[in-house]
């Protein structure tokens, strides 16, 4: 047995030889960089990573990662990845998708994958527009949005991706932003460590078709004023000088100004492990994610609970039955009722 330790992997080990072909300035570059920085830190051999994608700008991701990769068809990446993970539990399988790919054409696969709790990591790059097809509105585009396919403004009410994931029963739900590098990396690491479906929405800027969609959150002042950085066991405070907080009235969240008799003690302490998903759902609902509303944008881990995974359940059954019911192929082919015709043409019940 070879006991020599391989040198630790570096970011470079995960860069493929393919020229990256996203538009200059695209948020995808930052996300690619974050993933290439996080993967070497996970202690997993490079050949064990598989990245599966669908169709769209984000779905070109696998070509730029020097791992096993599968650029599949529109919306179907969770289905392909499920087939891989069910049969190859030793692999670390990541799905990279976008708002159109995951929430429109592939919505069914997304919710069922999350419902089953397949041990996959799903990164949804949400730029609120169809980029690869040159600028149509997407299922996360805001009402009234003017695009090539909605010249008079969209009247199509959008999805909140976090609510879809929480509603589908996802056991890990988080959100970060393409250019918030340290935050994004920490969220990716948390997702990697989760056992079960880990859903991460990454707000991603499309500087060609939907530039500055998240500017109110991502510009210099917005980061502190409009970002609510969730931390497990910590009170919900935000703002330039941590001068605001979120209180839970029992039915709703409300923003409170700290000081003047109100302190962190009046704010809800965030519990990402809360078994009932309704609070996480309500948290996801306070903002559409662009930082333009009355509430801050929740970032970080909304939900992280333990639950059995589908793939482990499937494999356990197979292992159990393989031990409990040994049968040869010959026995299977024979079945239970046979008859035998001998050389003289006589028939008797049973095999020879």
């Amino acid at each position: 047995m070879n006991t020599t330790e391989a040198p630790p992997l570096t970011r470079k080990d995960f860069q493929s030889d393919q020229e990256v072909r996203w538009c200059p300035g695209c948020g995808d570059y930052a996300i690619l960089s974050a993933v290439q920085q996080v993967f070497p830190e996970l202690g997993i051999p490079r050949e064990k990573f598989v990245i599966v994608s669908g169709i769209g700008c984000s779905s070109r991701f696998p070509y730029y990662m020097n791992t096993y990769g599968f650029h599949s068809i529109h919306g179907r990446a969770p289905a392909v990845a499920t087939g891989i993970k069910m049969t190859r539990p030793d692999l670390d399988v990541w799905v990279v998708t976008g708002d159109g790919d995951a929430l429109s054409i592939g919505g069914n696969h997304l919710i069922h994958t999350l419902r089953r709790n397949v041990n996959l990591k799903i990164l949804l790059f949400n730029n609120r527009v169809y980029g690869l097809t040159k600028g149509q509105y997407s299922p996360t585009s805001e009402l009234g949005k003017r695009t090539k396919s909605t010249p008079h403004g969209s009247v199509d009410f959008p999805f909140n991706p976090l609510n879809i994931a929480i509603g589908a029963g996802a056991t890990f739900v988080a959100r970060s932003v393409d250019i918030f590098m340290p935050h994004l990396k920490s969220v990716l690491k948390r997702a990697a460590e989760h056992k079960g479906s880990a859903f991460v929405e990454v707000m991603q800027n499309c500087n060609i078709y939907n530039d500055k969609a998240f500017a109110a959150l991502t510009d210099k002042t917005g980061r502190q004023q409009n970002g609510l950085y969730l931390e497990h066991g910590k009170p919900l405070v935000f703002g330039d000088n941590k001068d605001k907080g979120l209180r839970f009235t029992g039915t709703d969240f409300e923003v409170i100004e700290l000081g003047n008799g109100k302190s962190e003690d009046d704010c809800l302490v965030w519990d990402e492990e809360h078994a009932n998903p309704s609070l996480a759902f309500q948290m996801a609902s306070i903002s559409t994610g662009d930082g333009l509303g009355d509430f801050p944008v929740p970032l970080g881990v909304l939900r992280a609970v333990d639950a059995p995974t589908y793939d482990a359940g499937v494999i356990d059954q197979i292992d159990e039955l393989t031990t409990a019911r040994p049968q040869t192929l010959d026995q299977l082919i024979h079945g239970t009722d046979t008859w035998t015709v001998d050389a003289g043409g006589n028939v008797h019940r049973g095999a020879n």
Partner: protein
Amino acid sequence: MTLPIAGQTDAGKAAEATVSDVVIRFAGDSGDGMQLTGTQFTNTSALIGNDLSTLPDFPAEIRAPAGTLPGVSAFQVRIADHDIHTPGDAPDVLVAMNPAALKANLRDLRDNGVIIVNTDEFTPRNLKRAGYESNPLEDDTLNAFRLYRVALTTMTRRALEESELDVRSKDRCKNFLALGMIYWLFSRPLEPTIDWLRVKFRRRPEIAEANVKVMKAGWNFCDITDAFQVRYDVEPAKLEPGTYRSIHGNSALAIGLVAASRRSGLPLFLGAYPITPASDVLHELATYKHFGVTTYQAEDEIAAVCAAIGASFGGNLGVSCSSGPGIALKAEGINLAVMVELPLVICDIQRGGPSTGLPTKTEQADLLQVMFGRNNESPVPVIAASSPANCFDTALEAVRMATAYMTPVILLSDGYIANGAEPWRIPQVEELPDLRVDFHQNAEGFMPYMRDEQTLARPWAIPGTPGLEHRIGGLEKEDVTGNVNYEPENHDHMVRLRAEKVARIVNDIPDLEVEGPQSGKLLVLGWGSTLGAITGAVNQARADGLTVSRAHLWHINPFPRNLGDVLDRFERVLVPEMNLGQLALLLRARYLKDIETYSKVEGKPFTRDEILHRIERMTGESNQR
């Protein structure tokens, strides 16, 4: 054959007559257990050593309104002391559990055929439901037949007088009274069914024993009374020596896939979504987990095929199974497998259509869909099973092509052979083809789209192998490197290469064999489930002194190498198909040969006589020329 009305007589006993061949149809309401009754009769006859063939015919509705024509469920079985090819054109015996069952099936019955009816069900209300204006048991509707009136429900209740079951449960046993009678009438033993009942209802022995009791009551009723003047026997068929079992097509397909998994060393993964008549493959494979089989009931047809592709990427034997409507949904997934050149087997158990069509009825009209129903140039090998037992060999051959050529393969079956049964001579495991697969291991010089010189297959390099990290996908590939490439010359090259790869399969598939004269005036050429009817018709035509040959296609894409030669050797070629001429279209296009189509799209298989009459007409025409 017509059942004789006289036979050898012993004093005080019914006359006994041996017949070589009999067709029995059990018909009743969907809830009357006709499929089960027919299956029991089939299995018992199989164990006696008869050759047999079955034709289940049931409605798409689980429980259509009781007593109505759409609710009638029927099971036809033919048993014989010789080699047979079809479930029979016309029943000799009809068991009709109610007026609707009688009305729906009477027109098929042979003249002077035997009818056993449950008189208890011939009430004014049921007669009206079946659309009878007067009671056919009392008018002259049934004059041409031998009618036996039996109060099945009353007798069942009486047999179970001491049972503690409720009346409803008692009444549900009445099909076993009919079965007991038919067992007596055709001199079958009761033991195999008794054994089956006691295993099936081991947790509810009171149900098992009630059915046993009722079945014996049916038998005894015939034995004691003079209900029937003649009792028949069908002797064992002179089958080739060997061990046999009775098998349905879907079951043979499921077992064949497990066998292929074992012979290839690849764990089997089935991605499926419930659809008639393919679901039984999913059901059966779900019970074979102890063979390392993973079954995945996906959220839809698309996910089912995509998960199978993912499993293949990971080094499993990826399979997806469906019927026409589901295959349509899988088209984009199949095309992905064409592009990424991964092994995949897609089983299409065809049914009547288009659209939802006739879910429980049979048809062969997906041939052009599986050949061409995908965007762009998308060559996929196609192979068609021709009988229930042949589904086993077809599964192995589909897997062989898929893994040897790194390609998706489509396996065609249909509702007729999926649900039909026949005796199957069980093969020796060691005689099955060796399908061992070697995954690529060597990192030196590895390119994901480098190719085997002979087969043009690319290497199967599975995730987890150090040094072989690579990316595949639906975008056009550069040959050898597998890099995304949009160059015009490369695309032209790759389109031709994918076509050539599938075309080269012709190098290791058998030539088409012609049965009968190797050249001449008429060839009857078939594919898929028409094999039985064509064989029966051609054999009969020859027995009648006509000169006719026949051949049956197994591989449809690519066609066997000698097919063009075979077609050229005959003046006329007749292709019977349960569609409007889809194979004929392919043959005409490929070989510029005038093909004569015989179409039937009634949701029912061809009868032997239909094809025989066509042969007679065509040979008659030839003689006049």
